[in-house]
């Protein structure tokens, strides 16, 4: 039996705090309303919790905390769709796949979640950049050492 990380009935969210992904996420187009949850204790990790399905929750990170050089360009189509008017509007989070051995966890740098925190509209953008990995090791030092020291 799965346990949800967050009990959505406990979340005290007003409607304008929800983040709307109009097209859902690839593979999960049925769900469009999410909450991006964080507290100081878990930074730079954030839960992205579906507000429509209590069992649907992602672990995401602020990518710049791990990869300060992470850099990409957004297409005009994305800028327009998310109604971005300045860089200050943008929140970037990337979805983590937690491995059985959590040291081997990876993060999807190829398809960041781009959110406009002003308009509360978000989208998972597939960057189509060959230099970015879908499975980038989150802890490259630890995962390549594989315990030998």
């Amino acid at each position: 039996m799965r346990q949800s990380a967050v009990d959505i009935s406990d979340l005290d969210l007003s409607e304008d705090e929800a983040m709307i992904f109009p097209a859902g996420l690839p593979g999960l187009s049925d769900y469009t309303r999410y909450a991006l949850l964080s507290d100081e204790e878990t930074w730079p990790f954030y839960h992205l919790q579906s507000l429509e399905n209590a069992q649907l929750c992602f672990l995401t990170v602020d990518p710049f905390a791990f990869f300060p050089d992470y850099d990409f360009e957004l297409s005009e189509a994305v800028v327009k769709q998310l109604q971005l008017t300045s860089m200050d509007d943008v929140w970037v989070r990337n979805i983590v796949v937690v491995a059985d051995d959590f040291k081997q966890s990876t993060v999807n740098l190829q398809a960041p979640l781009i959110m406009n925190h002003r308009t509360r509209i978000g989208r998972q953008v597939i960057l189509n950049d060959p230099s970015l990995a879908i499975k980038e090791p989150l802890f490259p030092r630890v995962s390549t050492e594989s315990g030998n020291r």
Partner: protein
Amino acid sequence: MLVLRRKVGETLLIGDDIELVVLGVEGDRVKLGIQAPKEIEIIRKELLDEVTEENKRASAVVPSKELLKQLKELRRSEDEGK
């Protein structure tokens, strides 16, 4: 599905403003050129499939508070090792 035969250099029009031109054929690879308005997004389907798979994998593991603490701890030790 509409199936058409085109020769190298020939073009297809999709709607009013999308042009698809066959630039060349090398073995089993076809080189296509696409001219479309900037708001039309074009990606390889297998890339979308990979992201879909990765999202499913990600949503299959519920990150507990305890796990988060371990991940955070690991990040700190990595940072210190730099």
